[in-house]
């Protein structure tokens, strides 16, 4: 049954883009919920946004954007057959992605510490709009966090494949697709930052 082996890099890339479309629509559902709720509770969203740590949010944005840059550099390095350099760049990406998660967990930890988590007794005393704000905050950043974890796992495999020469100068479509996924994670974060942190 190995007769189907044929290579179509354009097709693979098309398939990946279609998959990214589904991811965007997935978050799109949450963005619809966000815009409706924000329209309904403008004041509460403003107040909720002021509880978030803008500095950490911006630092995380810089971290994530830089990690996208290093993925691109890794692809360029593979195209030039510079294996060691590609591995360094991919490794940097992984470290930056992990940094993002660590900073994020500090932020979540602080919120939990202040009693701001879904179903908490403290949150129940706040006005309904703020409860929804934090419900959306945890859902959307949480889902984004899961995508970061997924992206890191994919890029981890890519690093392994570069090391074992499954990805090389004449065959790097998987790395390109992995990179595309990582950029998507990045793009979604760029929308989350203003919607939550800069809402105040």
């Amino acid at each position: 049954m190995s007769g189907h082996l044929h290579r179509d890099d354009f097709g693979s890339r098309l398939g990946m883009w279609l998959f990214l479309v589904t991811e965007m629509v997935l978050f799109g559902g949450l963005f619809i919920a966000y815009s409706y709720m924000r329209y309904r509770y403008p004041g509460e969203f403003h107040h909720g946004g002021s509880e978030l740590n803008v500095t950490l949010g911006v630092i995380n944005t810089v971290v994530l954007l830089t990690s996208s840059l290093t993925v691109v550099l890794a692809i360029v390095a593979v195209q030039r057959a510079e294996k060691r350099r590609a591995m360094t760049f991919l490794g940097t990406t992984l470290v930056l992605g992990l940094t993002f998660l660590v900073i994020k967990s500090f932020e979540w930890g602080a919120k939990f510490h202040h009693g701001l988590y879904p179903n908490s007794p403290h949150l129940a005393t706040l006005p309904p709009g703020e409860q929804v704000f934090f419900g959306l905050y945890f859902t959307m950043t949480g889902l984004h966090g899961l995508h970061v974890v997924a992206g890191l796992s994919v890029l981890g495999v890519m690093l392994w494949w570069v090391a074992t020469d499954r990805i090389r100068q004449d065959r790097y479509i998987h790395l390109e697709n992995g990179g595309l996924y990582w950029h998507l994670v990045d793009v979604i974060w760029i929308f989350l930052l203003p919607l939550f942190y800069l809402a105040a």
Partner: protein
Amino acid sequence: MSTQASTAQPSYLVDTGTRKGLMAWLTTTDHKRIGLLYLYAMLTFFFVAVGIGFVMRLVQLTTFQHLITARTYNALFTVHGVIMIFLFVVPGIPAVFGNFFLPILIGAKDVSFPRLNLLSWYVFMAGAIFAVLSLFTGGGAPDTGWTFYAPFSLKTGTNVSLAVFAAFVLGFSSMLTGINFITTIHRLRAPGMKWFRMPLMCWALYSTAWIQLLATPIVAITLVLVILERFFGIGIFDPAKGGDPLLYQHLFWIYSHPAVYIMILPAMGVITEIIPTFAKRPIFGYKAIAFSSMSIAGVGSLVWAHHMFTSGLSSLSVMLFSLLTMIVAVPSAIKVFNWVSTLYKGSIDFQPPLLFALTFIFLFCIGGLTGVMQGALAINVHIHDTYFIVGHFHYVMFGGTGMALFAGLLYWFPKMWGRMYSRKAIYASWFPMFIGFNMLYFGMMILGMMGMPRRYYVHLPQFHFMHVVATVGSWFLVLGLLMFFGTLIYAMFKGEKAEDNPWGGVTLEWTIPSPPPQENFEEIPTITQGPYHFVQQEGKS
């Protein structure tokens, strides 16, 4: 008739790899085998859900309920809906005939991502297993109806979380199939197979795949929100926390209405293949049918709120959605007129697939026209949440998609298994099926007009007569189904050997042997003309 095409390759049904038997099937990346894996799994689920529907009808046979409790009844209609929608009708035709025939129809050896294709099947089976598990674990089978409306779905103690997760997983399978089909159609068409030379089934699958891609993620995230709500109380749909249950309905129907077109578009594609073959005429209005598929996909995505007319939407949005609902009937009607025009002055060869295709047109017209009725606001308010709705969507889902699936099975059976069924037995099964179908579902529509609400465990005495009619209809229907599938299963093993082209079809699947060889074609064909050129074929033979 064409001569047996010679080929060096063994049939796809023969194991040639290192693995044999069941293992060879479970690890296959052959699109034809994956299509059959889907078929066998789906028909099993179909019969489970038929059984549940049968029991529900028995409950309504008496005004005193002896058979089951009200709670169980709620679970039964939920499970019937979940299985039929998510495990049978939505994946149905694309997963079976799409997988089996899409690559053959465009002259390819397989889909673009064969391994992803197999993965989709496993994801589908995982979702199916979760759905079945949700019936027996946790707080018991979900009792929300297949729509999982908030806030009840957030509060009920039954096992909604697992059922919803199952639907999420099944949606994932559907999306992966959509990605695969779009890429396949873009990349793997044979040389000369231009967009407007594709058989119309491919157009139907193409537009379906786009809906799968663009609508499914919305329901996925909505179902995730239900789960999060149940476990963590995030409050987005919970009015006590400032959330809005109406938002759930919107998000749910943003997917689930287009899902109706995921169900019906491929069915229309099957009918569009069958009609020209038995009318021996090129399809009337090729481009009109192709574009109507795409416009159904487009407009059909903008009509979802017609499920919510009585939920307190603003009158402006209600009117807009009413208008859009009426508009979406236009491309469907275009197809119906084109099918009928194709038959006109054709030299009709009346065979079982054509009988079921015509049955499709008849039942779909009833289902479609009653749908337009419901788009009208005044009528909608009157019949909302009554048996009329139940009757209507069974005409579309079962009379439409179900009948098209049966028609497709009959049409492609000799190609898929290389054997022929008894035509007389199929005709014999048609009568009870058709009579029972109309007694059951037309009876339901009359009940709805009289005021019988859906999902009720008991009914008032004045509804009793029509309930008896409907229940007796369900017996005929089940009898017909058993005869139909009995005939096909017998033919699968004992049927006569089929010719390569028993119907005189002219699309690519009829140019290869029955059953098809492993790689479909000895040599990828070069296409020089559009599909459905019957005149030239007669000239050749």
